[in-house]
């Protein structure tokens, strides 16, 4: 932090928040709210005179509430800049008549009660998101009695208790009697690896954090008997297994099993843990003087705002999703945005530093180049066809299309640097006024025609997305999984590109079954484009039904890149479905769809239905 604060090329905005963030790679506009400190940062010498006279005492968040601070304070010892902050909500009031003791005590006259939040606008080329994570709140796990039993503490609280800069100056004391405990237990996976409560994922750091804590205890207090209750210890990483061995050899007892209940002895305040030791199969009871809950990590509670600003998406566990887990692990799906640290997934310091270095390197490549290379698969507006409805701008997951101006008859504009080429806009455009470069409608229609040229009634036309379903098919192939040969794949960059026209064209040419497949919602490589796929397929089911065609003949499946098993299973199931589609049915479908009137009639029927739902102004007046 000190280095960052002193670096000539880094401007550090401490005690600040991002109010707004717009733009695209190379042109991000950020509005920063620099919150009022009520202390003139440049003048403050951190002399502590103001703190000594401040009468307001509140729990210190940094010390996990084990000690107190004043309303004017430095958030933590190594804070940069080393200047005080006055918390106005805790202060007795900015009316000097009410208190004003700090202003009186400050010789440099740094206290400014009239200071206001300052809005700063800056323009940047790239953004690195390193907003971190939060720790799991264990209060919902009633069996551990956190907050009910004083001697049950969290791993964060333990850190403060054992730290030389902590409230006890490094003397490890248990909260109830201020005595060093003789026995201590660590419970692993609190809030992690649980399907019912907490989170299903592994938080990555807790096992090694506990191993480190036990070694620390052994070094400082060799007489303390430590026990670790675990599901399984995950000590992967350089030197981690050695640390684990050292901990075991040092006398720490590792018991495989998570306690089902913690009871407190009301007299001694000791804790009685009931646990099934899954190694021996025995139900055991352990009396300990203190218990540490090894907490898992969770995404930040205010992550939604960030996602909205930068058009990001998250994985099913709530952490932000990278562009590609293997090929672009530090890039966000939005070009020019990079991740560092736990904002992307739980990780330890070493991994965070590695990722931060990679993110900085990735960012500097863009900045040094001074220009952006984009894939040549972006969308293009065909102005002559556009009716300025603006659907394209609304559906774009990247906000890469600027709204049209209907009055001025100005067509929407695609920001080429921001467009990722998913094709959702092209598929949704009712006027076919958007062309995807290299993935044009004509190319897809030609592919469908080629597939349907011979024995169309024997083929399942499958639209598979480039990132998940298509590699899912590859996975099935490389794993030598058997599936019917009736499947005919058409690769799209995203399932969001699958236009209604493509599906109808396949049916028109005699396809018995059409499958649209893409990434799972949480894996979508184009933020939320897959949601538009689902909406569109639902619309198509309704349309097919209106036309008298079985909607079952249009199938939808989300297949991940590693799910060759599912790909093969789906193909086998569709082969069975294919057998139920008769030649008469196929001919009827071909006739209905070749006769444009029927399709128009179905569309008109839908419009009439919508009109009926929304009464006209006249009807309202009546």
């Amino acid at each position, binding site marked *: 932090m000190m280095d960052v604060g002193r670096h000539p090329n880094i401007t550090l905005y401490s005690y600040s928040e991002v109010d707004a963030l717009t733009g695209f790679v190379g042109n991000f506009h950020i509005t920063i709210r620099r919150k009022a400190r009520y202390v003139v940062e440049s003048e403050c010498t951190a002399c502590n005179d103001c703190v000594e006279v401040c009468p307001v005492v509140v729990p210190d968040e940094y010390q996990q509430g084990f000690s107190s601070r004043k309303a004017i304070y430095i958030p933590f010892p190594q804070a940069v800049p080393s200047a005080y902050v006055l918390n106005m909500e805790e202060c007795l009031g900015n009316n000097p008549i009410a208190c004003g003791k700090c202003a009186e005590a400050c010789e440099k006259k740094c206290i400014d009660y009239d200071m206001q939040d300052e809005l700063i606008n800056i323009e940047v080329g790239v953004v690195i998101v390193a907003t971190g994570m939060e720790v799991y709140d264990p209060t919902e796990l009633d069996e551990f009695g956190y907050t009910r039993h004083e001697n049950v503490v969290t791993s964060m609280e333990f850190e403060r208790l054992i730290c030389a800069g902590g409230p006890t100056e490094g003397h490890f004391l248990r909260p109830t009697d201020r005595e060093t405990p003789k026995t201590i237990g660590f419970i692993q996976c609190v809030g992690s690896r649980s399907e019912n409560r907490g989170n299903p994922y592994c938080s990555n750091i807790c096992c090694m954090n506990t191993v480190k804590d036990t070694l620390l205890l052994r070094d400082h207090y060799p007489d303390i008997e430590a026990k670790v209750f675990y599901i399984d210890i995950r000590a992967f990483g350089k030197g981690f297994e050695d640390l684990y061995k050292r901990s075991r050899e040092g006398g720490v007892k590792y018991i495989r099993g998570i306690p089902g209940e913690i009871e407190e002895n009301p007299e001694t305040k000791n804790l009685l843990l009931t646990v099934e030791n899954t190694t021996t199969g025995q139900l055991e009871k352990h009396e300990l003087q203190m218990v540490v809950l090894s907490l898992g990590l969770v995404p930040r509670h205010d992550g939604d705002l960030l996602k909205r600003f930068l058009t990001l998406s998250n994985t099913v566990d709530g952490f932000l999703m990278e562009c590609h887990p293997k090929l672009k692990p530090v890039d966000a799906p939005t070009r020019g945005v990079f991740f560092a640290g736990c904002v992307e997934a739980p990780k330890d310091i070493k991994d965070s530093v590695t990722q931060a270095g990679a993110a900085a390197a990735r960012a500097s490549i863009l900045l040094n180049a001074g220009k952006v290379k984009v894939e040549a698969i972006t969308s293009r507006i065909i102005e002559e066809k556009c009716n300025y409805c603006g659907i394209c701008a609304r559906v774009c997951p990247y906000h890469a299309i600027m709204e049209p101006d209907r009055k001025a008859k100005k067509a929407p504009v695609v920001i080429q640097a921001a467009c990722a080429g998913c094709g959702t806009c092209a598929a949704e455009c009712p006027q076919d006024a958007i062309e995807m470069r290299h993935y044009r409608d004509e190319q897809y229609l030609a592919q469908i025609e080629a597939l349907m040229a011979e024995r169309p009634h024997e083929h399942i036309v499958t639209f598979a997305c480039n990132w998940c379903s298509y590699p899912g098919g590859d996975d099935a192939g490389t794993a030598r999984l058997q599936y019917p040969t009736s499947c005919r794949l058409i690769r799209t960059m995203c399932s969001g590109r699958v236009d209604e026209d493509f599906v109808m064209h396949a049916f028109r040419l005699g396809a018995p079954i059409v499958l649209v497949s893409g990434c*799972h*919602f*949480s894996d979508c490589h184009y933020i939320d484009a897959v*949601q538009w796929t*689902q*909406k569109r397929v*639902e619309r198509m*089911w309704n349309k097919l039904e209106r036309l008298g065609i079985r*909607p*079952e003949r*249009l*199938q*939808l*499946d*989300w297949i991940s890149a590693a799910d060759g098993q599912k790909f093969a299973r*789906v193909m086998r*199931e569709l082969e069975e*479905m294919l057998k139920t589609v008769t030649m008469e049915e196929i001919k009827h479908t071909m006739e209905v769809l070749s006769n444009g009137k029927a399709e128009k009639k179905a569309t008109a029927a839908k419009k009439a239905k919508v009109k009926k739902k929304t009464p006209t102004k006249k009807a309202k007046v009546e």
Partner: protein
Amino acid sequence: MPEAKFKCLRCGHEYTGSYTPGTPQELTCPKCRSNSVRRLPEKKPAQKD
């Protein structure tokens, strides 16, 4: 959350489940695990004259 009837277009299984209006959800048939699950339109009660 409101409830609706869903039908799997692969195995034909019909079931009742909750959904968030206006937000597309990844739907999976509890019987055959297919994602070809369609939310059936609600049947409105006939209006009396």
